[in-house]
């Protein structure tokens, strides 16, 4: 069985489980980002509104200030793909969309992503047509990690809900 596991990296990883929220914030947990600015901190928030990642010094990737390429260990997101059998992965992509139509950009926000040590520039990964392409894993294994720097900025005042990010890959 194939599974994806999502982590916010830091001094220790914080797993983002099905009931948690990945939070882009201002300088501190639960703080707002000014319109046009990018996240100054990234957190994992539980369904009881607590800061799950507080003890792990979570990584943050700021589109305005980050110097690329970003080392794998310094990326905010680590997505692990695991499978019972040893498989290769190809054609992996990652992008944000409005939560309804995969070709449409997320609503009310700007989103950038880059793949760890492999990318020397950001991808404005909004909609499937602009997805960030992730490197192939051409050596078969039961576990493959993807390191992704992510950064977001609100285009207007107010909470942004309904947008999603999506990851797809091929394995065999």
């Amino acid at each position, binding site marked *: *069985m*194939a599974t*994806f596991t*999502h982590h916010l990296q830091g001094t220790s990883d914080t797993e*983002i489980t*099905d*009931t*948690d*929220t*990945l*939070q882009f914030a201002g300088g501190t947990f639960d703080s707002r980002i000014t319109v046009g600015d990018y996240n100054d901190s990234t957190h*994992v*928030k539980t369904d009881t509104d607590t800061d799950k990642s507080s003890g792990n010094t979570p990584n943050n990737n700021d589109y305005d200030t980050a110097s690329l390429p970003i080392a794998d260990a310094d990326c905010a997101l680590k997505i692990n*793909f695991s*499978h*019972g*059998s*040893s*498989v*290769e992965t*190809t*054609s992996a992509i990652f992008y944000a969309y409005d*939560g309804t139509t995969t070709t449409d950009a997320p609503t009310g926000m700007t989103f950038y992503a880059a793949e760890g040590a492999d990318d020397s520039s950001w991808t404005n990964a909004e909609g499937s047509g602009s997805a960030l392409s992730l490197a192939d894993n051409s050596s*078969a294994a*039961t576990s493959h990690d993807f390191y992704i720097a992510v950064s977001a900025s609100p285009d207007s005042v107010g909470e942004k*809900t*309904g*947008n*999603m*990010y*999506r*990851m*797809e*890959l*091929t*394995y*065999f």
Partner: protein
Amino acid sequence: MTRNIKWTVGLSDGSNKQSDKGEFKRVKGELSPWQKLLNYIDEKGLKITSLALFIEGKRWNLPSKGNQPKFRAFDEAKSPNSYRFFRKMGVDILNGKKKDVEHYAVAEAQYNNKKLQIWVKDKEPYPSWSIVLNNKKG
């Protein structure tokens, strides 16, 4: 409930092989059945001449040089140059929460400039789609 759609291939020596059977069984930690098949045909110098997906009495065939209906359309149809099998997985994350995880089995017939893919969702009742793509795209 997610199942596991299997593949069956015809090989250029006239034999048929299928996943999760005999030497192509799925064993935890070992190469996947398709990886085992790729190694097998490489060692034996064989080619894949047909590819189909199947599960629970349902079967999805790609065009082939093997057994097919007698209608003229099948005589005139172009045979694929090669075949490929893979699985696709996609996950949507809403505000950090997993919203939907999809698993598909894909059988692909490759032609000079195009490829025909049959996608079967690995979940009952196994809905399927066919698409034609330019060969350069993954």
